[in-house]
Protein backbone atom coordinates (compact mmCIF):
# COMPACT_ATOMS: atom_id res chain seq x y z
CA UNK A 1 0.00 0.00 0.00
CA UNK A 2 1.37 3.37 -0.96
CA UNK A 3 2.11 5.54 2.03
CA UNK A 4 0.21 8.78 2.23
CA UNK A 5 2.51 11.61 1.21
CA UNK A 6 2.20 15.31 0.96
CA UNK A 7 3.86 17.73 -1.42
CA UNK A 8 6.31 18.73 1.25
CA UNK A 9 7.83 15.31 1.61
CA UNK A 10 11.56 15.12 1.06
CA UNK A 11 11.41 11.57 -0.17
CA UNK A 12 12.28 11.17 -3.80
CA UNK A 13 9.21 10.61 -5.92
CA UNK A 14 8.98 9.25 -9.39
CA UNK A 15 10.52 11.66 -11.91
CA UNK A 16 7.15 12.58 -13.41
CA UNK A 17 5.75 13.36 -9.98
CA UNK A 18 8.80 15.44 -9.18
CA UNK A 19 8.28 17.34 -12.41
CA UNK A 20 4.62 17.89 -11.58
CA UNK A 21 5.56 19.29 -8.18
CA UNK A 22 8.00 21.68 -9.82
CA UNK A 23 5.34 22.81 -12.27
CA UNK A 24 2.62 23.49 -9.71
CA UNK A 25 5.02 25.20 -7.38
CA UNK A 26 5.84 27.69 -10.11
CA UNK A 27 2.64 27.95 -12.11
CA UNK A 28 -0.06 26.89 -9.66
CA UNK A 29 -2.91 24.48 -10.14
CA UNK A 30 -4.49 25.93 -13.27
CA UNK A 31 -3.48 23.59 -15.99
CA UNK A 32 -3.85 26.18 -18.72
CA UNK A 33 -0.98 28.07 -17.08
CA UNK A 34 1.43 25.18 -17.33
CA UNK A 35 4.03 25.29 -20.14
CA UNK A 36 2.78 23.71 -23.34
CA UNK A 37 5.64 21.27 -23.54
CA UNK A 38 4.62 19.74 -20.20
CA UNK A 39 0.89 20.17 -20.24
CA UNK A 40 -0.23 17.14 -22.20
CA UNK A 41 1.94 14.65 -20.31
CA UNK A 42 1.05 16.15 -16.94
CA UNK A 43 -2.66 16.19 -17.67
CA UNK A 44 -2.47 12.52 -18.54
CA UNK A 45 -0.54 11.84 -15.33
CA UNK A 46 -3.11 13.70 -13.22
CA UNK A 47 -5.94 11.79 -14.87
CA UNK A 48 -4.34 8.41 -14.22
CA UNK A 49 -2.43 8.83 -10.99
CA UNK A 50 -4.08 9.46 -7.61
CA UNK A 51 -0.96 10.99 -6.10
CA UNK A 52 -0.64 13.40 -9.00
CA UNK A 53 -4.30 14.32 -8.73
CA UNK A 54 -3.93 14.98 -4.99
CA UNK A 55 -0.97 17.25 -5.61
CA UNK A 56 -2.95 19.34 -8.07
CA UNK A 57 -5.96 19.47 -5.75
CA UNK A 58 -3.81 20.81 -2.94
CA UNK A 59 -2.30 23.48 -5.12
CA UNK A 60 -5.70 24.47 -6.43
CA UNK A 61 -6.81 25.00 -2.84
CA UNK A 62 -3.92 27.41 -2.35
CA UNK A 63 -4.92 29.19 -5.57
CA UNK A 64 -8.48 29.60 -4.27
CA UNK A 65 -7.15 30.91 -1.00
CA UNK A 66 -5.08 33.54 -2.80
CA UNK A 67 -8.11 34.63 -4.74
CA UNK A 68 -9.87 35.81 -1.58
CA UNK A 69 -7.28 38.55 -1.11
CA UNK A 70 -9.29 41.75 -0.75
CA UNK A 71 -9.77 44.15 -3.61
CA UNK A 72 -11.45 47.52 -3.74
CA UNK A 73 -15.23 47.47 -3.79
CA UNK A 74 -17.20 48.59 -6.85
CA UNK A 75 -18.41 51.66 -4.96
CA UNK A 76 -14.89 52.61 -4.05
CA UNK A 77 -13.75 52.18 -7.64
CA UNK A 78 -16.61 54.35 -8.87
CA UNK A 79 -15.73 57.11 -6.43
CA UNK A 80 -12.07 56.81 -7.32
CA UNK A 81 -12.91 57.11 -11.02
CA UNK A 82 -14.74 60.36 -10.28
CA UNK A 83 -11.85 61.73 -8.30
CA UNK A 84 -9.27 60.85 -10.93
CA UNK A 85 -11.23 62.46 -13.76
CA UNK A 86 -11.99 65.54 -11.66
CA UNK A 87 -8.33 65.87 -10.77
CA UNK A 88 -7.30 65.55 -14.42
CA UNK A 89 -9.77 68.24 -15.40
CA UNK A 90 -8.64 70.50 -12.60
CA UNK A 91 -4.98 70.34 -13.47
CA UNK A 92 -5.36 70.37 -17.25
CA UNK A 93 -2.50 69.00 -19.24
CA UNK A 94 0.55 71.07 -19.93
CA UNK A 95 2.49 68.46 -21.85
CA UNK A 96 1.74 66.38 -24.87
CA UNK A 97 -0.96 68.59 -26.34
CA UNK A 98 -0.46 69.05 -30.04
CA UNK A 99 0.41 72.56 -31.04
CA UNK A 100 -2.24 72.59 -33.76
CA UNK A 101 -4.93 71.07 -31.60
CA UNK A 102 -8.27 72.58 -32.38
CA UNK A 103 -10.79 73.51 -29.73
CA UNK A 104 -14.19 71.92 -30.03
CA UNK A 105 -16.90 74.34 -29.06
CA UNK A 106 -19.32 71.67 -27.94
CA UNK A 107 -16.84 69.70 -25.88
CA UNK A 108 -17.58 69.33 -22.23
CA UNK A 109 -13.94 70.02 -21.59
CA UNK A 110 -13.65 73.19 -23.61
CA UNK A 111 -12.37 74.96 -20.54
CA UNK A 112 -9.55 72.50 -20.27
CA UNK A 113 -8.62 72.81 -23.92
CA UNK A 114 -8.59 76.57 -23.72
CA UNK A 115 -6.20 76.49 -20.82
CA UNK A 116 -3.99 73.96 -22.58
CA UNK A 117 -3.95 75.93 -25.81
CA UNK A 118 -3.07 79.07 -23.90
CA UNK A 119 -0.17 77.35 -22.24
CA UNK A 120 1.01 75.92 -25.54
CA UNK A 121 1.08 79.39 -27.10
CA UNK A 122 2.92 80.73 -24.11
CA UNK A 123 5.52 78.00 -24.34
CA UNK A 124 5.93 78.53 -28.07
CA UNK A 125 6.60 82.21 -27.54
CA UNK A 126 9.18 81.54 -24.89
CA UNK A 127 10.94 78.86 -26.87
CA UNK A 128 11.31 80.91 -30.02
CA UNK A 129 12.58 83.92 -28.20
CA UNK A 130 16.07 83.11 -26.94
CA UNK A 131 18.01 82.57 -30.17
CA UNK A 132 16.78 85.77 -31.78
CA UNK A 133 17.22 87.72 -28.59
CA UNK A 134 20.70 86.41 -28.15
CA UNK A 135 21.69 87.35 -31.69
CA UNK A 136 20.43 90.88 -31.22
CA UNK A 137 21.81 91.43 -27.78
CA UNK A 138 24.92 89.28 -27.73
CA UNK A 139 27.34 92.03 -28.71
CA UNK A 140 26.15 94.13 -25.80
CA UNK A 141 27.08 91.41 -23.41
CA UNK A 142 30.53 91.01 -25.00
CA UNK A 143 31.12 94.74 -24.88
CA UNK A 144 30.06 94.91 -21.31
CA UNK A 145 32.38 92.12 -20.34
CA UNK A 146 35.28 93.70 -22.24
CA UNK A 147 34.73 97.04 -20.61
CA UNK A 148 34.56 95.43 -17.25
CA UNK A 149 38.04 93.93 -17.36
CA UNK A 150 38.96 95.68 -14.19
CA UNK A 151 35.69 94.98 -12.55
CA UNK A 152 35.20 91.94 -10.43
CA UNK A 153 33.80 88.69 -11.82
CA UNK A 154 30.76 89.18 -9.65
CA UNK A 155 29.99 92.51 -11.23
CA UNK A 156 30.25 91.03 -14.70
CA UNK A 157 27.97 88.21 -13.77
CA UNK A 158 25.44 90.61 -12.31
CA UNK A 159 25.55 92.69 -15.46
CA UNK A 160 25.01 89.61 -17.60
CA UNK A 161 22.11 88.52 -15.48
CA UNK A 162 20.57 91.98 -15.70
CA UNK A 163 20.88 91.94 -19.46
CA UNK A 164 19.24 88.57 -19.70
CA UNK A 165 16.35 89.64 -17.51
CA UNK A 166 16.02 92.85 -19.52
CA UNK A 167 16.01 90.93 -22.76
CA UNK A 168 13.50 88.48 -21.37
CA UNK A 169 11.06 91.12 -20.15
CA UNK A 170 11.50 93.31 -23.19
CA UNK A 171 10.92 90.42 -25.51
CA UNK A 172 7.90 89.18 -23.60
CA UNK A 173 6.07 92.47 -24.05
CA UNK A 174 7.30 93.54 -27.46
CA UNK A 175 8.58 90.84 -29.79
CA UNK A 176 6.52 87.85 -28.84
CA UNK A 177 3.20 87.25 -30.51
CA UNK A 178 0.98 89.81 -28.81
CA UNK A 179 -2.15 87.87 -29.53
CA UNK A 180 -0.93 84.71 -27.89
CA UNK A 181 0.42 86.61 -24.91
CA UNK A 182 -2.91 88.32 -24.48
CA UNK A 183 -4.59 84.96 -24.74
CA UNK A 184 -2.36 83.57 -22.06
CA UNK A 185 -3.20 86.40 -19.71
CA UNK A 186 -6.87 86.22 -20.50
CA UNK A 187 -7.24 82.48 -20.24
CA UNK A 188 -4.64 81.32 -17.81
CA UNK A 189 -4.76 84.41 -15.64
CA UNK A 190 -2.06 86.85 -14.71
CA UNK A 191 -1.16 84.84 -11.67
CA UNK A 192 -0.21 81.87 -13.80
CA UNK A 193 1.85 84.00 -16.14
CA UNK A 194 3.62 85.76 -13.33
CA UNK A 195 4.25 82.51 -11.58
CA UNK A 196 5.81 81.13 -14.73
CA UNK A 197 8.00 84.18 -15.09
CA UNK A 198 9.13 84.03 -11.49
CA UNK A 199 9.54 80.33 -10.95
CA UNK A 200 10.66 79.40 -14.45
CA UNK A 201 9.34 75.86 -14.68
CA UNK A 202 9.82 73.93 -17.88
CA UNK A 203 9.62 76.93 -20.15
CA UNK A 204 11.96 78.93 -18.00
CA UNK A 205 14.44 76.07 -17.93
CA UNK A 206 14.35 75.77 -21.71
CA UNK A 207 14.90 79.49 -21.97
CA UNK A 208 17.95 79.45 -19.74
CA UNK A 209 19.38 76.45 -21.56
CA UNK A 210 18.96 78.16 -24.90
CA UNK A 211 20.54 81.37 -23.68
CA UNK A 212 23.52 79.56 -22.23
Amino acid at each position, binding site marked *: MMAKRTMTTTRQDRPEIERLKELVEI*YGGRRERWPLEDRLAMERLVAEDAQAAAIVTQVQALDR*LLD*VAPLMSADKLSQLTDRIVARAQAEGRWQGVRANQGVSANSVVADLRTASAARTGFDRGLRTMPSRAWQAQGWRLSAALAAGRRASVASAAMLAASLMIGVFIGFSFSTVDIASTAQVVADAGEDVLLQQLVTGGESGDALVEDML
Partner: protein
Amino acid sequence: MAVKPRHATRDVQDVLESADGDALSDMALVERMAGGDADAFAWLVKRHIGMVSAVARRMLGDDSEAEDVTQEAFLKLWRLGAGLTIEANGVRPWLRRVVSNLAIDRIRARRRTDLRDELPEIPVGAEQLRALEGNAVAQRVDQALQALPERQRLALTLFHFEGMSQREVAASMDISDEAVESLLARARRGLKSALADEWRELMAGSGAD
Protein backbone atom coordinates in the same frame (compact mmCIF):
# COMPACT_ATOMS: atom_id res chain seq x y z
CA MET B 1 -20.37 78.09 -27.50
CA ALA B 2 -19.34 78.32 -23.92
CA VAL B 3 -19.54 75.13 -21.98
CA LYS B 4 -19.87 75.27 -18.26
CA PRO B 5 -17.35 73.32 -16.28
CA ARG B 6 -18.91 70.11 -15.16
CA HIS B 7 -19.09 68.72 -11.70
CA ALA B 8 -17.14 65.49 -11.90
CA THR B 9 -18.92 63.55 -9.19
CA ARG B 10 -22.14 63.49 -11.11
CA ASP B 11 -21.12 64.12 -14.68
CA VAL B 12 -18.41 61.51 -14.97
CA GLN B 13 -20.89 58.82 -14.07
CA ASP B 14 -23.40 60.32 -16.53
CA VAL B 15 -20.81 60.16 -19.27
CA LEU B 16 -19.87 56.59 -18.45
CA GLU B 17 -23.50 55.49 -18.40
CA SER B 18 -24.64 57.26 -21.53
CA ALA B 19 -21.72 57.50 -23.92
CA ASP B 20 -20.52 54.78 -26.23
CA GLY B 21 -16.91 54.73 -25.14
CA ASP B 22 -17.06 50.96 -24.80
CA ALA B 23 -17.23 50.68 -28.56
CA LEU B 24 -13.98 52.58 -29.01
CA SER B 25 -10.55 50.99 -28.88
CA ASP B 26 -7.91 52.13 -26.43
CA MET B 27 -6.09 53.72 -29.34
CA ALA B 28 -9.11 55.77 -30.35
CA LEU B 29 -9.74 56.85 -26.77
CA VAL B 30 -6.10 57.83 -26.25
CA GLU B 31 -6.24 59.79 -29.49
CA ARG B 32 -9.22 61.73 -28.20
CA MET B 33 -7.74 62.12 -24.75
CA ALA B 34 -4.57 63.53 -26.30
CA GLY B 35 -6.75 66.28 -27.71
CA GLY B 36 -8.00 67.13 -24.24
CA ASP B 37 -11.18 65.05 -24.30
CA ALA B 38 -11.82 64.27 -20.65
CA ASP B 39 -14.74 61.99 -21.56
CA ALA B 40 -12.35 59.72 -23.43
CA PHE B 41 -10.05 59.80 -20.43
CA ALA B 42 -12.96 58.86 -18.17
CA TRP B 43 -13.66 55.86 -20.38
CA LEU B 44 -10.06 54.74 -20.22
CA VAL B 45 -10.15 55.04 -16.45
CA LYS B 46 -13.35 53.03 -16.25
CA ARG B 47 -11.98 50.35 -18.56
CA HIS B 48 -8.71 49.81 -16.73
CA ILE B 49 -9.23 50.92 -13.15
CA GLY B 50 -10.09 47.39 -12.04
CA MET B 51 -6.75 46.02 -13.16
CA VAL B 52 -4.73 49.05 -12.04
CA SER B 53 -6.32 49.18 -8.59
CA ALA B 54 -6.00 45.41 -8.15
CA VAL B 55 -2.26 45.47 -8.84
CA ALA B 56 -1.86 48.46 -6.53
CA ARG B 57 -3.99 46.90 -3.80
CA ARG B 58 -2.20 43.56 -3.89
CA MET B 59 1.20 45.18 -4.00
CA LEU B 60 0.54 47.72 -1.25
CA GLY B 61 -2.04 45.98 0.92
CA ASP B 62 -3.68 49.24 1.80
CA ASP B 63 -6.75 50.79 0.19
CA SER B 64 -5.71 54.36 0.73
CA GLU B 65 -2.24 53.93 -0.70
CA ALA B 66 -3.60 51.82 -3.54
CA GLU B 67 -6.03 54.63 -4.41
CA ASP B 68 -3.20 57.16 -4.43
CA VAL B 69 -1.07 55.00 -6.71
CA THR B 70 -4.01 54.22 -8.99
CA GLN B 71 -4.76 57.92 -9.33
CA GLU B 72 -1.12 58.69 -9.98
CA ALA B 73 -0.91 56.08 -12.74
CA PHE B 74 -3.94 57.45 -14.56
CA LEU B 75 -2.82 61.04 -14.19
CA LYS B 76 0.47 60.06 -15.80
CA LEU B 77 -1.57 58.76 -18.70
CA TRP B 78 -3.53 62.01 -18.87
CA ARG B 79 -0.44 64.19 -18.69
CA LEU B 80 1.40 62.18 -21.29
CA GLY B 81 -1.43 62.49 -23.80
CA ALA B 82 -0.16 62.41 -27.37
CA GLY B 83 3.28 61.45 -26.15
CA LEU B 84 2.06 57.95 -25.36
CA THR B 85 2.86 55.19 -27.81
CA ILE B 86 0.03 52.66 -27.78
CA GLU B 87 0.97 49.03 -28.08
CA ALA B 88 -1.01 46.58 -30.18
CA ASN B 89 -2.92 45.32 -27.16
CA GLY B 90 -3.90 48.73 -25.93
CA VAL B 91 -2.87 50.89 -23.02
CA ARG B 92 -3.19 48.09 -20.46
CA PRO B 93 0.46 46.88 -20.54
CA TRP B 94 1.67 50.45 -20.15
CA LEU B 95 -0.63 51.07 -17.20
CA ARG B 96 0.41 47.78 -15.64
CA ARG B 97 4.07 48.73 -15.83
CA VAL B 98 3.42 52.19 -14.46
CA VAL B 99 1.34 51.05 -11.51
CA SER B 100 3.80 48.26 -10.70
CA ASN B 101 6.69 50.69 -10.66
CA LEU B 102 4.76 53.24 -8.63
CA ALA B 103 3.81 50.59 -6.09
CA ILE B 104 7.40 49.37 -5.80
CA ASP B 105 8.63 52.93 -5.39
CA ARG B 106 6.15 53.46 -2.61
CA ILE B 107 7.05 50.22 -0.89
CA ARG B 108 10.70 51.15 -0.98
CA ALA B 109 9.99 54.62 0.26
CA ARG B 110 8.11 53.43 3.30
CA ARG B 111 10.64 50.66 3.95
CA ARG B 112 7.89 48.30 4.83
CA THR B 113 9.49 45.34 3.14
CA ASP B 114 12.81 43.65 3.35
CA LEU B 115 14.53 43.71 -0.02
CA ARG B 116 16.17 40.36 0.61
CA ASP B 117 14.36 37.46 -0.99
CA GLU B 118 13.87 35.43 2.14
CA LEU B 119 10.88 33.52 3.31
CA PRO B 120 8.76 35.79 5.48
CA GLU B 121 8.19 35.43 9.18
CA ILE B 122 4.47 35.32 9.75
CA PRO B 123 3.14 35.77 13.28
CA VAL B 124 1.19 32.76 14.49
CA GLY B 125 -1.01 32.09 17.47
CA ALA B 126 -4.42 33.17 18.68
CA GLU B 127 -4.78 35.59 15.83
CA GLN B 128 -4.72 32.72 13.38
CA LEU B 129 -7.76 31.17 15.00
CA ARG B 130 -9.75 34.34 14.59
CA ALA B 131 -8.48 34.57 11.04
CA LEU B 132 -10.63 31.63 10.06
CA GLU B 133 -13.76 33.65 10.72
CA GLY B 134 -15.35 35.60 7.89
CA ASN B 135 -13.32 38.36 6.40
CA ALA B 136 -10.35 37.51 8.51
CA VAL B 137 -9.24 34.85 6.05
CA ALA B 138 -9.03 37.51 3.38
CA GLN B 139 -7.05 39.65 5.78
CA ARG B 140 -4.66 36.82 6.49
CA VAL B 141 -4.14 36.22 2.80
CA ASP B 142 -3.51 39.92 2.41
CA GLN B 143 -0.99 39.89 5.25
CA ALA B 144 0.77 36.89 3.76
CA LEU B 145 0.99 38.60 0.41
CA GLN B 146 2.34 41.75 1.99
CA ALA B 147 4.96 39.76 3.87
CA LEU B 148 6.44 38.50 0.62
CA PRO B 149 9.52 40.28 -0.71
CA GLU B 150 8.39 42.84 -3.26
CA ARG B 151 9.78 41.08 -6.34
CA GLN B 152 8.11 37.84 -5.39
CA ARG B 153 4.87 39.67 -4.75
CA LEU B 154 5.04 41.51 -8.05
CA ALA B 155 5.78 38.35 -10.02
CA LEU B 156 2.91 36.52 -8.34
CA THR B 157 0.55 39.46 -8.78
CA LEU B 158 1.30 39.72 -12.48
CA PHE B 159 1.27 35.99 -13.17
CA HIS B 160 -1.43 34.63 -10.90
CA PHE B 161 -3.77 37.56 -10.45
CA GLU B 162 -3.28 39.43 -13.71
CA GLY B 163 -2.95 36.35 -15.88
CA MET B 164 0.23 37.46 -17.61
CA SER B 165 2.39 34.83 -19.23
CA GLN B 166 5.80 34.00 -17.83
CA ARG B 167 7.40 35.82 -20.72
CA GLU B 168 5.24 38.89 -20.17
CA VAL B 169 6.13 38.95 -16.49
CA ALA B 170 9.81 38.66 -17.40
CA ALA B 171 9.51 41.54 -19.84
CA SER B 172 7.52 43.63 -17.42
CA MET B 173 10.02 43.13 -14.62
CA ASP B 174 13.03 43.20 -16.94
CA ILE B 175 14.30 39.84 -15.73
CA SER B 176 14.84 36.42 -17.29
CA ASP B 177 12.22 33.68 -17.63
CA GLU B 178 14.22 31.60 -15.19
CA ALA B 179 14.21 34.40 -12.66
CA VAL B 180 10.42 34.57 -12.96
CA GLU B 181 10.19 30.84 -12.26
CA SER B 182 12.35 31.25 -9.20
CA LEU B 183 10.35 34.19 -7.87
CA LEU B 184 7.02 32.43 -8.43
CA ALA B 185 8.19 29.24 -6.75
CA ARG B 186 9.55 31.09 -3.74
CA ALA B 187 6.40 33.20 -3.49
CA ARG B 188 4.18 30.13 -3.50
CA ARG B 189 6.32 28.35 -0.95
CA GLY B 190 6.18 31.38 1.30
CA LEU B 191 2.42 31.72 0.97
CA LYS B 192 1.85 28.03 1.54
CA SER B 193 3.85 28.22 4.72
CA ALA B 194 2.22 31.44 5.90
CA LEU B 195 -1.28 30.22 5.14
CA ALA B 196 -0.82 26.64 6.28
CA ASP B 197 -3.72 26.74 8.73
CA GLU B 198 -6.16 28.31 6.31
CA TRP B 199 -5.02 26.00 3.57
CA ARG B 200 -5.56 22.87 5.70
CA GLU B 201 -8.96 24.20 6.75
CA LEU B 202 -9.90 24.66 3.14
CA MET B 203 -8.67 21.19 2.20
CA ALA B 204 -10.61 19.63 5.08
CA GLY B 205 -13.72 21.53 4.09
CA SER B 206 -13.49 20.29 0.55
CA GLY B 207 -12.95 16.70 1.69
CA ALA B 208 -9.66 16.51 -0.13
CA ASP B 209 -6.59 15.04 1.41
